[in-house]
Each structure stands twice: as C-alpha cells, then as structure tokens.
C-alpha cells in the first residue's frame, strides 16, 4: 500500500456568493522515494489539495466535505487538531512559496529549528542545538554555527528557503509537501533548491509532493504527474509518458503555450494561447469543465452535457476527456519537444 492515499477528496469553500468547489473529487497516491508533481494554473485547487492533506485549510470558510486522506493506513481527515499536530512537522512536513511569510520574523533561525525538534522529539537543549547546526549544514547553509543566531531577514531568498527546508526535514518526515518552493527565486537559485530537494529526498527516502505551475519544474523533478484543472484531475501519468504523449487537450495546450528556450525559430515561435478562462467554481458546469475552451469539443458532443470520467487510456495513464490526443485520428495537435 502507498504511504499516502488520497481518495475522492472534496474541499469546498462556503462563501456568501455560494459554495466554491475548490477541490472536487481528487484521488492519487504517493510512495516513499517517489515525487508526485501536481501542476496547474492559479485557482485549479492544487494548493488547497495540499492544505487539505495537512489539515491546514481555513475552517471556516473551507471544509473537507468528502473523501479520505489515508496516511500509513490512518485516516487524517477525522483526526483532532491535537492529533494532527503530532503528525504535522513530524511525519508530514510542508514548505511554502514564500519563506518570508512562513518563517517567524521575530525568532532566530536556530530557535525555530530547535522549537520543531523539541516539540516532536524527546531531545535535550544541547542536543537540539547540535542537531540544528547539522541540519543547516545539510541544506547547504555556509557557516551554520553563526547562522543559528540570525533572524530570517538577514538571509537572502535562497538561504531563507534552505532554512525553511531545514525546519521541514528536522524530524525526518516521511512525506514532504513542497508548494511552489522555487517560484519566488531566481533561476540559478531555483536550480540549486530543486537539486537540494532531490538529494534530501533520496537520502531521507521521503515521499514528496511537488506543487507548481511550471511544467519545466515538473520535467526536472517529478516521477509522476497530476494535471489539475478547475478543481479536478484532468490527466495523470508518469512524467516521461506525460511529456511524450500528452492526452488531455488542456495538457497539450499548456505545453503549447510555453515559450521554448531551445527552439531555433526563436522570435518566430508562435505560442498557442488558450482562449477564455477557467469556469467559476460556484455551480460549475455539469459538462466537462474544459469544454468551453477546448479546441476539439463541439456543442453536440456528450462532453458538453456530461462530465467525462477519469479513465485509464494506457497502463498508468489516466485522462478525463472525450477527446484525448490518441483518439483524434489525424487531428493530433503537434506539441513541440
């Protein structure tokens, strides 16, 4: 059995305007030593999915209204806040996009690491200090002893992200959830942080969920990929398979919309823009949620009135569409590599 199994997760926001179906029936699993990438654009529900697993959604207005989150055979959605606190930071840890808002600006880096260690492990003050230095060293922060007494604002963006990673791995979590961990960083720093996460995952044999909007980051770091759109999974496949044979029109369009750095046509590249915008998630259409923007759908299709199921089109490759690429004979949209 997989370390983490999410089944038919539904997280809704109860607002004055109506019920927002932010996450609407999401299922996936992650094993130790494996990185699952969740990719999608703003508002697709990828972060809410992560927060739901962690029990960190703001209640109210949000509520998990259905589904299961099975962690090592335990159901997390029914745990009390107290029980969740024992899991969070210990067995499951999370890092966020902006380390400046998730680190406490009034506490030193050292204090914040030691705090986590002593919350979860039976460990003396001296031992915690020693361990904190080791951790800062492990995440590649130079001169860790002197950094221990620094406040977050003294560190650069990349170093802050490393400090946050140090806190996250301090209790040897079995699952690390990284929500846009490199989005605020420059490309050279991003590359270093992704390398670091990869190394740590291997050395700690963690399961990892990597949430990003960037297909490049997915190609770089994920083993398996979930593509989300409007609160649902629209495609799911091993990473190479997904990039070699994208099936869902949305995945194809996302790849076509990306400027290619190694495309020799340079300036003459024409990007495939996706017309329109994602649907409102208050009373979303009963139809396929991508239908209104889909270049292959026509009004007579059943996907204009019925939601397509997520089906296995090839072993391990799932797609939620009436018009997957491999069933569109001769009409295949060319996706440049």
């Amino acid at each position, binding site marked *: 059995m997989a370390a983490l199994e999410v089944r038919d997760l539904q997280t809704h926001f109860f607002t004055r305007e109506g019920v927002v179906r932010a996450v609407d029936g999401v299922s996936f699993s992650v094993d130790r030593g494996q990185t699952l990438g969740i990719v999608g654009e703003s508002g697709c529900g990828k972060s809410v999915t992560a927060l739901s697993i962690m029990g960190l959604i703001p209640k109210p207005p949000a509520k998990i209204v259905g589904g299961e989150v099975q962690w090592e055979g335990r159901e997390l959605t029914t745990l009390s806040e107290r029980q969740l606190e024992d899991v969070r930071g210990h067995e499951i840890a999370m890092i966020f996009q902006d380390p400046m808002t998730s680190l406490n600006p009034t506490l030193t880096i050292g204090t914040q690491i030691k705090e986590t260690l002593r919350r979860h492990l039976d460990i003396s003050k001296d031992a915690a200090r020693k361990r904190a230095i080791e951790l800062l060293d492990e995440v590649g922060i130079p001169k860790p002893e002197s950094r221990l007494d620094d406040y977050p604002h003294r560190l650069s963006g990349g170093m802050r992200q490393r400090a946050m990673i140090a806190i996250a791995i301090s209790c040897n979590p079995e699952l690390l959830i990284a929500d846009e961990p490199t989005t605020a960083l420059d490309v050279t720093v991003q*590359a270093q942080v992704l*390398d670091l996460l990869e190394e740590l995952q291997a050395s700690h044999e963690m399961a990892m969920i990597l949430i990003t909007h960037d297909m490049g980051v997915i*190609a770089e770091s994920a083993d398996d990929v979930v593509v989300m759109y409007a609160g649902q999974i629209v495609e799911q496949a091993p990473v190479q398979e997904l990039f070699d044979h994208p099936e869902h029109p949305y995945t194809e369009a996302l790849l076509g919309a990306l400027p290619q750095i190694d495309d020799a046509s340079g300036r003459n590249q024409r990007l495939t823009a996706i017309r329109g915008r994602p649907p409102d998630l208050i009373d979303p259409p009963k139809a396929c949620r991508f239908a209104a923007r889909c270049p292959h759908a026509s009004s007579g299709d059943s996907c204009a009135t019925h939601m397509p199921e997520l089906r296995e089109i090839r072993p391990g490759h799932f797609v939620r569409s009436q018009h997957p690429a491999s069933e569109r004979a001769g009409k295949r949209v060319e996706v440049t590599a």
Partner: protein
Amino acid sequence: MHAVDGVSFDILNGETLGLVGESGSGKSTTGYCILQLMRPNSGSVRFEGVELTELKGESLRRMRRRMQIVFQDPYSSLDPRMTVGNIVAEPLIVHSVSNRKERRARVRELLDTVGFDPSFTNRYPHEFSGGQRQRIGIARALALSPDLIVCDEPVSALDVSIQAQILNLLKDLQDQFGLTYLFIAHDLSVVRTMSDRIAVMNDGKIVEIGDAQYVYSHPREEYTRALLKAVPIPDPRKMKERKQERRQLQKSLADG
C-alpha cells in the same frame, strides 16, 4: 550604491531588445533611466539623436509621448478608482491631443486593438482578470502612438496560458505599428521568443549583448551559460543532461 553601472547599448528602430537578468541586476532601473522616470547620475540617453538627460519641462513632456511603459503588475499599475475608459484616455487628456468625442472613439479603437471588449469602458479594473488588465495597460501605453515601449516584466504575474495571449498580442502590435520594444524579463524562455537581440545584465552591468539566436546558442560569458543552464525546460529527458552540465558549471563558477 550603483544599481546600474556603466551600461551602454543601443536599440534599433522596430526591433526588440531583450534585457534579462536576475533580481537586483539593474534591468528595471535601466528601463526607468531610458524613460527618464529616474534620472541617471551620469551618462547619456539619446532618442533619435536627442539627448534625453538634458531635457526638461515641455521638451521632455513632448519626448515622453513617444516613449511608453507597460508594467509587471496589472493589479497595482491601474488606478482602482478610475474606469477602464478613463485609464486609457488619461494620456490623451494629459497631453491634450484630442477633444472629448475623438477621445471616446480613440479609446474604443485602442481597446479593440488589444482584444478588450470596448463595451466595458465604464467598468473598473478590479472586475477583470490579470490578463484582461494587462490588455488595459497595453492600450494605455499605445494611446499616444509611441515609437518605443519599455515592457517591464509584462507577463510575469500571469498564468502560462494567459501569458501566451499577451506575448502574441505584443508581437502583433509591433508588426502592426512598427513599435520598438525594450523587453525586460527574468524569464529567459520568454525573452527568447520575443527578442531580436539580447542583453544579459548582472550586478548593474551588461555582461553580454548580441543577436538573440547567437547569445542563446553560443553564450560567450560564463554567467550567461550558467543562467541558461539553470532554466528548467519541459522535457524530462533533456532535463537529465542539463542537470549534469549545470552541476559542472556551478562548480567551475564557484571555483573560478
């Protein structure tokens, strides 16, 4: 503190010069200095032979009509209390180029040009998505029929699918109106699809400048190479090779 230090380059009529660099490299400051939104401490900025740094008052105003800017954040660069129509009309009013009736027609024409429904002129910016707002910002920049537009990270706040719409639009407008662009961005893939020539900035200096194709395929400087190798590309197979090369480069940069 020298944010920009001894930078020299030229932009040819009708071309796009891409200016790339990481945060703090001085690329936006360079853009502001060209438009005289910031006055450089020393140095010279010439626009069609006219020295801009010496211009003041009315002559500077006159010059500014021909140089416009599109900002990164379509949320903070549009006045939330002004209607879409007034935002786009503002440059026309400030430079008093037309009467009320002509203005109204011009605003509709501009919005139509950038793919924004002109029937929404009485709405406010908050009613629109990031992509639509950026169209409003572009319409405003076009209002005075400028020759040069400085695009300062025009798509970095947008989702990929919307980003593609805006990049395509900017290219179409350039063809249609013969615009010259200084295109400032941190995303090297985006700059590649937009630029004829590219200048790479680091620490307030231009480290490399040249034909876009050439800079990307044969980067001369170590810094440019490291930057290019750090960009994640959407191809898992190629990514594996790049990771190897990247680690070697980082090592040699750290050692050298």
